[in-house]
């Protein structure tokens, strides 16, 4: 086994009486791309959000890159600098230009000077195909453009791992391709990625491993071929039947 990037042991999360995650064990190796699938309400997003403590675990251990995220004494801001996150609804900072969105964290956190950050931002925007939007305000962008800016913003902190929370679910169908292309490039370049998605095509093509979740538990995991062509668990089968035969 390669060096572990993510090491989750016996993770439980309750929202009031609602037991959302029930004793999850979840590991991700360096440079690995893991795709989380499963019906809505299965706990995929909650698991992802526990990885950078946007949700505080009820019990269990979450270790990212050797840092115990679930320990209150850990400097969570420091740890988050290395964990990029992309949201379903983009969450671009509405009061800042595209360029400022990308530059905010590196400059505020003293990672780079204004000039360095601006240069880096322009370069990142170029890689996501939006160099001409540097001075634009978020409201003037399409959904696909916003999501690519959001990816650039997360990458600006040079994270070791990227978390994607249904990054294409809020997009018009014709925009999905652009965003997935950027993600594929990232994967190709060796980024460690955890992706919650309903894009089965992306899972098949890019994932090193697919994890199927239902009812707050990991039901089945394996290579894309194993999961999609030869699922063992009944829940996996019925889920895939529904999604793929739409």
């Amino acid at each position, binding site marked *: 086994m390669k060096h572990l990037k993510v090491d989750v042991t016996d993770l439980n999360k309750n929202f009031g009486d609602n037991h959302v995650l029930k004793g999850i064990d979840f590991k991700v190796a360096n440079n690995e791309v893991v795709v989380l699938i499963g019906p809505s309400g299965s706990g995929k997003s909650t698991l992802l959000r526990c990885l950078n403590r946007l949700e505080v675990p009820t019990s269990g251990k979450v270790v990212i890159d050797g840092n115990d995220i679930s320990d209150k004494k850990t400097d969570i*801001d420091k740890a988050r600098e290395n964990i990029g996150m992309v949201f379903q609804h983009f969450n671009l900072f*509405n009061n800042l230009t595209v360029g400022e969105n990308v530059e905010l964290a590196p400059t505020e956190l003293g990672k780079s000077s204004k000039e360095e950050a601006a240069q880096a931002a322009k370069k990142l925007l170029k890689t996501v195909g939006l160099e001409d939007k540097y001075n634009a305000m978020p409201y003037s962008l399409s959904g696909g453009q916003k999501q690519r800016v959001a990816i650039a913003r997360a990458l600006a902190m040079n994270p070791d791992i990227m978390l994607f929370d249904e990054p294409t679910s809020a997009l018009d169908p014709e925009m999905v391709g652009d965003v997935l292309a950027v993600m594929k490039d990232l994967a190709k370049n060796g980024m460690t990625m955890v992706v919650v998605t309903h894009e089965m095509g992306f899972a098949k093509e890019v994932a090193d491993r697919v994890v199927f979740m239902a009812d707050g538990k990991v039901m089945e995991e394996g290579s894309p071929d194993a999961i999609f062509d030869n699922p063992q668990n009944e829940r996996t089968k019925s889920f895939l039947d529904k999604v793929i035969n739409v």
Partner: protein
Amino acid sequence: MKKFFVLLSCIFSITIAGIMFSQPKVQAAEKTYTIGTDVTFPPFVYANSNNKYVGIDMELIRAIAKEEGFKADIKPIGFNAAVQSLSSGQIDGVIAGMTITDERRQKFDFSTPYYQSGIVMAVAPKSKITSLKDLKGKRVAIKTGTSGADYANSIKDRYGFKTVTFDDSDNVYNDVKNGNSAACFDDSAVLNYGVKTGLGLKIVTKPTNTGKYGFAVQKGKNQELLSKFNQGLEKLKKNGKYDQIIEKYTGSAATSSKKKENKQKDADGHTFVGLLKQNKDALLEGVWETIELTVVSIICATVFGVLIGLLGVIPNKFSQGFSTTVIYIFRGLPLLVLALFIYNGVPSLTGSKIPAFIAGIITLTLNEGAYTAAFVKGGIEAVDTGQMEAARSLGLPFGKAMRRVILPQGLKIMVPSFINQFIITLKDTSILSIIGILELTQTGKIIIARNLEGFRIWTIIAVIYLVIITLLTLLSKWVERRIKD
């Protein structure tokens, strides 16, 4: 953003310091006593056309002060407010045609009586009411806290009438004149004087429940002042000055000349221009006081409100609870109650005085600040939670995320509420007239108490408020545009 807060807190502290230093210092050589009195109770207390307070009580207290070598700082804050301020120790004495009663003796020490009066009933000139028996089922106007009111309340069941209470004598008289109330009860000296000088009412009963007027201090306190008053009064009675004063205000010469003066003033006193000219100085002072109150309160309330609002959104149960409680209390209290509580209630507890202006600022800061805090909190909470999550997930600490991402967006949401709150603050300063601050509304009350030109003066006051509010709105809109760009 940081600079903005630093600037705000600077202004805040400078303002507070300014207020502290601008308070008149107590002079060591000649002792100054603060004496509360009524707004209008002629011939005992009333403002003449120069807005100077004259009348029997005023001349007496000034003559006694001169005789005994102390300074009297006269505060015409209204009878009710004066009595309350005295019992809470905010002022040192009250001279306001106050009848000495057993009930009042429990709270105050009285001087030797300086005047004797009784209660009479007055009705409109054309009224058919001639005795108490005719009052059955009717409404009677009284002034709060007066012995006329006590008398009316004591007999209202027997004669089957209802009472309606006002704060100022002129409101009482007007209510009778325009027929809303059938009659009013007041001291005979006051009503006699009024009738003689053209008040437009007639007296239909003989004086009853005769009472004596006394100068009052808080029970057991300011005994020195009380004995000085008694000594001074004694001297004035001996040297004939006392009789002169009484004659000056109740003699036929006085009343007929006053009547003439009233008639003459009526000529130009019935036009807006005439009234404006006559009261220009008083109105300007009132406007200035209102503006001062408004500006200082807006600054203090904004700083206070923003701080409390921010405490309400930081992820800490204690600070959130604190913020919620402060908002709950000060938004829940009527402004009037809060003003009276701070001005009259707190000093009777702590024993130290609060100047009316400071009490007013504190009142507005707490009340308007609570509203500000509520919409600051609301504005921040109205920013999509995803914005905070995105900022935090990049590694930005809470404070930085707040400052760079959430507050700029929240502020835009809050701007209309801020403008609204500024306008409300301006209007709410009028409520502070209750604690005797001589702002625009109180100035209006006093002018009307003198000339009974309610309609025209209130119109003038209303227009002045609208003008200031328009200016404030224009200023705010200009600032709003600057922020949006």
